[in-house]
Each structure stands twice: as structure tokens, then as C-alpha cells.
């Protein structure tokens, strides 16, 4: 078989989306308090789930590429649009702190019975229209590409893929160790240090 299969039909969408939804709900991402607790370092679930998922998928992709099964050049790898990517991350982050959701978790929450998530989704629609209206003014700034197409961390850091994967795994293991067992509120020094260390290691 040639990967990717290029199957973007209805069944492909439904099945892969179903897995996504089942995991989001079972991870507790449907609970807004859980996601806002991460932002206050009281609960590290969001970080652990996201980082584990990224590392598992990344190890899979890079291993399959090394085995010649799939080439990253045939997959969608986003390019950097510095201001757009950064402002976007900030916007979604503010949205999570204020509203308790990100777009995906708001859908999982609505379908586990949370009516406020419906309003978050209405807000997403309004934010999309605001972007549409401001697009003539800001489009050339947010969509100005930085660096090469499909820029990856191994290219940026001039490191082999396995080294970047090892580094990311080390970050996850460290955070996992520091926040292990009973989730008592982290000590102030740790709660100030951890995200910074992660940001430094990632950049």
C-alpha cells in the first residue's frame, strides 16, 4: 500500500473523528474546570495528554519514514507564519482561560451535556467573522511566511529527528515526574519554572 492512502471520504472522517471524540471525553477534556486547572498548574492532564499524543504520533511518523513506508513530504506539514501562528496561539489560549474551552473540547463538552459550550461555539463563529472583517487590514501581516515551507524542528535545530524526539520525551518524563501522584497544588517555584523550561527546550 502507498501511504498516505488519500482516503478523505465520509467514512474516513466519521471513524477517525469518533476515535478523537471518545479520547477527548474519556480524558476529561469535556470538563472546563479541568482545562482551566491546567492553566493554574493544579492539574497537568491537558499537558500530559497532548504531549504524549504528539510524541507517540511523531515517533510513529519518523519511524515509518525511516522504514520508507511514508514520506513526510507527502503529508501536510504546516509552514510558519510567525505573527499569525503566534497571535493565533495566544488567541486560543486566552479563549481557554476565559471560556474554559478550545474549539475541539467545546464540541466534546456540548455532546456530554454542557450548554455553555454551545455559546463558546457561537463565539467561535463570531470570532471567525471578526477575522474575516479585519482580514483586509491584517491579512498581509498574519499570513507572511517565515522560513522555508513545512519547516520542522529537526531543520531549525540542525538535529536528527530522533534527537528532537528524545528531547521532547525527556521534557514529558520530567514534567510527569515533577507532577506525579496526588495532584496537590504545585509549589510556587515549580509552577513558575516548568512552562518556561519547556518553552526554552522547545524553541
Amino acid at each position, binding site marked *: 500500500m502507498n501511504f498516505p492512502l488519500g482516503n478523505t471520504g465520509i467514512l474516513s472522517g466519521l471513524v477517525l473523528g469518533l476515535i478523537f471524540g471518545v479520547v*477527548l471525553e*474519556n480524558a476529561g477534556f469535556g470538563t472546563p474546570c479541568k482545562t482551566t486547572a491546567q492553566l493554574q498548574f493544579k492539574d497537568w492532564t491537558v499537558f500530559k495528554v497532548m504531549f504524549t499524543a504528539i510524541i*507517540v504520533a511523531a515517533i510513529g511518523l519518523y519511524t515509518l519514514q525511516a522504514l520508507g513506508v511514508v514520506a513526510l513530504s507527502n503529508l501536510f506539514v504546516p509552514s510558519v507564519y510567525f505573527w499569525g501562528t503566534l497571535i493565533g496561539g495566544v*488567541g486560543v489560549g486566552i479563549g481557554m482561560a476565559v471560556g*474554559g474551552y478550545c474549539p*475541539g473540547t*467545546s464540541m466534546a463538552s456540548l455532546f456530554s451535556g454542557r450548554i455553555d459550550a454551545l455559546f463558546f461555539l457561537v463565539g467561535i463563529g463570531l470570532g471567525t467573522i471578526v477575522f474575516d472583517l479585519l482580514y483586509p487590514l491584517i491579512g498581509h501581516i498574519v499570513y507572511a511566511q517565515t522560513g522555508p515551507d513545512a519547516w520542522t524542528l529537526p531543520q531549525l535545530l540542525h538535529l536528527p529527528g530522533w534527537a528532537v524526539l528524545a528531547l521532547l520525551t525527556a521534557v514529558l518524563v520530567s514534567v510527569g515526574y515533577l507532577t506525579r501522584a496526588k495532584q496537590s497544588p504545585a509549589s510556587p517555584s515549580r509552577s513558575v519554572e516548568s512552562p518556561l523550561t519547556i*518553552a526554552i527546550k522547545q*524553541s
Partner: protein
Amino acid sequence: MNNTAKPLWNPYVAGGILGLGLLATFLVTGHGLGVTGATTALTAKVSGQIAPGTVAPHSYLGTYFKHSLNIWVVWEVIGLMLGALGASLYGRRFKLKIDGPPHASVMVRIGLATLGGLFSGFGARAAMGCASGMGLSGSAPLAVAGFLFLIGFFAAGVLFGQISKGLWS
């Protein structure tokens, strides 16, 4: 009959399964998971009916308005909703309620949810993806864009999380 909610999955187990699902998505479709591709397409359709100016030929939403809603990400989002519904019912966690900051009034909760969504919707367009489409699916192939998004996401989340701390505790 036991009516108590079943426990949530261990975060590493949930993350591992999500990672395998994401890997499968790349192998089957050639791209990752997403959410706001669907909300943007739907917004363009609705907005175009109410205010045609928002989907004018050269506007941002113009191309979305022209295209059909029969796209992969729309079906994926429908799958997501069904998956979350099934999982919450099976786990006895489904409960109709207005969630949000525990001590806030209903109007404040709804207002904050709408405002948060507005920031989120705007941000997802600026970044061409949300926490799923860019943060998760961008970072999986180790794209710089995915990690830049995550840094902005967590930094702003933590900063504004400190400001809104009183509401959520």
C-alpha cells in the same frame, strides 16, 4: 444499579491512544485532525445568508462560502461529536448543565463562554488551525509552526488564567 460516573482514563493512556489515532489519520488522509476547518465552513454559510458582504468574492470567507460542506473535516467533527456523546453516556458522565466558573451566575457563564469562543475563533483563523489542527496535528510531524502555536497558547493561557483565577477556583 450503580449510577456513579466511571473514572476517566489515565492521561498517558488517553494521550497514547490519541497519538495512535492521529498517526492513523495522517496515514489514511495525509493530514492531521482538525476542528475549526468545519466551524469556519459553517460560519461562512450562515454568515453569507445573513450578511452577504462577509463572503464577498475576495473576502477571507468567500472561498469557504463557495465550497460545499461535504468535506472531510466536517465528517470528522460529526464523528467527534458522536464519539464524545457515546463516551459520556457509556461512562455515565453525560449531564445536561450550564458548566463554567463555579461561583458565577448563568449570564456571566454564558457571556464568558461566548467571549472566550470569540478569541478562540479569531485565533484559530490567524494561526490557520486551533489546538487540534495546529497545536496537535502541526506538532506531530515536528513542524516549527505547531510548537510556536503551543508556546503562545500555553503562555497566554497561563497569563490570562492567573487573571481569571478567582472566577474558576
